[in-house]
């Protein structure tokens, strides 16, 4: 395999796993969002993530094999993607989710833009497709950050707590694109009246298969049907 092909495959797997795990996380909101419109929005964003994941993983290998037959150590997603959408496992916090989506979609937008400009034709096609959808995701998260950050005392406090909690995971997420990512995210935080957290702790390891316990729980749910009935089809 050429150096380009090898590098592309590593990148496809990392991006594909980010999108797949994010899709599974976001799907937790289905039927539980604060309003019907938001329920539909979150389901659609999850669907976009799943679509991008399928294209990326199908290019890197066999999509079902990759999604359903790997153990947690085989996954290459960044830690942010697998974190619960609230302060603790099982929590589902809306402000936390929008902060998570802001961080993730800004990084995805940049990574897909780079993929679209790359030398690998198939990967470039996926990047060009996904970049349009990421633009909508980033916009959706931005609109909510402005409302929550500049909303009530409680909404501001909770979204700031989410930002403080998630910020450290942004380092691994933005490796190699940090400056461009900050240029997208910092203005949103400023306009939302939120304090950009200081850069201290930098947890990583996801890209090397060293994950948090949260991924194991997520996979247990996502893969249970396929593991019980290998090759099951609708």
């Amino acid at each position: 395999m050429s150096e380009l092909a090898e590098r592309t495959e590593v990148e496809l797997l990392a991006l594909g796993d980010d999108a797949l795990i994010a899709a599974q996380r976001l799907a937790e909101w289905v039927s539980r969002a604060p309003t019907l419109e938001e329920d539909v929005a979150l389901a659609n964003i999850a669907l976009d993530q799943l679509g991008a994941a399928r294209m990326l993983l199908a290019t890197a290998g066999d999509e079902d094999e990759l999604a359903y037959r790997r153990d947690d150590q085989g996954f290459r997603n960044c830690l942010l993607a697998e974190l619960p959408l609230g302060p603790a496992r099982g929590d589902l916090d809306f402000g936390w989710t929008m902060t998570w989506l802001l961080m993730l979609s800004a990084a995805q937008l940049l990574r897909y833009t780079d993929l679209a400009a790359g030398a690998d034709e198939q990967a470039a096609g996926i990047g060009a497709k996904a970049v349009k959808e990421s633009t909508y995701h980033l916009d959706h998260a931005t609109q909510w950050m402005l409302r929550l950050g500049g909303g009530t005392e409680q909404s501001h406090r909770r979204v700031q707590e989410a930002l403080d909690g998630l910020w450290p995971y942004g380092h691994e997420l933005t490796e190699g694109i940090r400056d461009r990512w900050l240029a997208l995210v910092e203005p949103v935080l400023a306009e939302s009246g939120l304090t950009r957290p200081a850069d201290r702790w930098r947890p990583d390891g996801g890209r090397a298969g060293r994950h948090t316990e949260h991924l194991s729980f997520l996979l247990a749910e996502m893969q249970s049907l396929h593991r019980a009935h290998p090759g099951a089809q609708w």
Partner: protein
Amino acid sequence: MTAQTEIARIAGAVPDPELRVVTIGELGIVRGAELADGRVTVTITPTYSGCPAMDAIRDDIRAALAGAGFADVEVKTVLSPAWSTDMITESGWAALERTGIAAPGASGTPACPRCAHAHGGQPTPVLQISRYASTPCQSLWSCRSCLEPFNAIKKL
């Protein structure tokens, strides 16, 4: 009519599984149709990458062509160039509007499909309810004049 033109016509005339009023040809989903050595290859492109209708579209194309006597059909998916709303044909937009689904509008604000013609072409004020609607490619709006909700195709 050559067999090739006939195949393109049949594939393009397949109705979209979610928006039954328009064909996949009008939506710009069909990229090509070829006949070589008795084998048909139809090339399609997804509107959104996670569009759940793609499997149904593939099956519908195969069924439509099988009905016309073409049994050996392969449906390929291409991503490049990425689908955009500019690929929807004029008759496609007209069909969507007749159903109450608005075009995204040049400025990003759609016109209410019920009131668009009733006010001498003057657009009525509209309000975006949600950036996402019943399909990934639509957003949800409400008209401040007739107070009815309507869907609009999102600019992509």
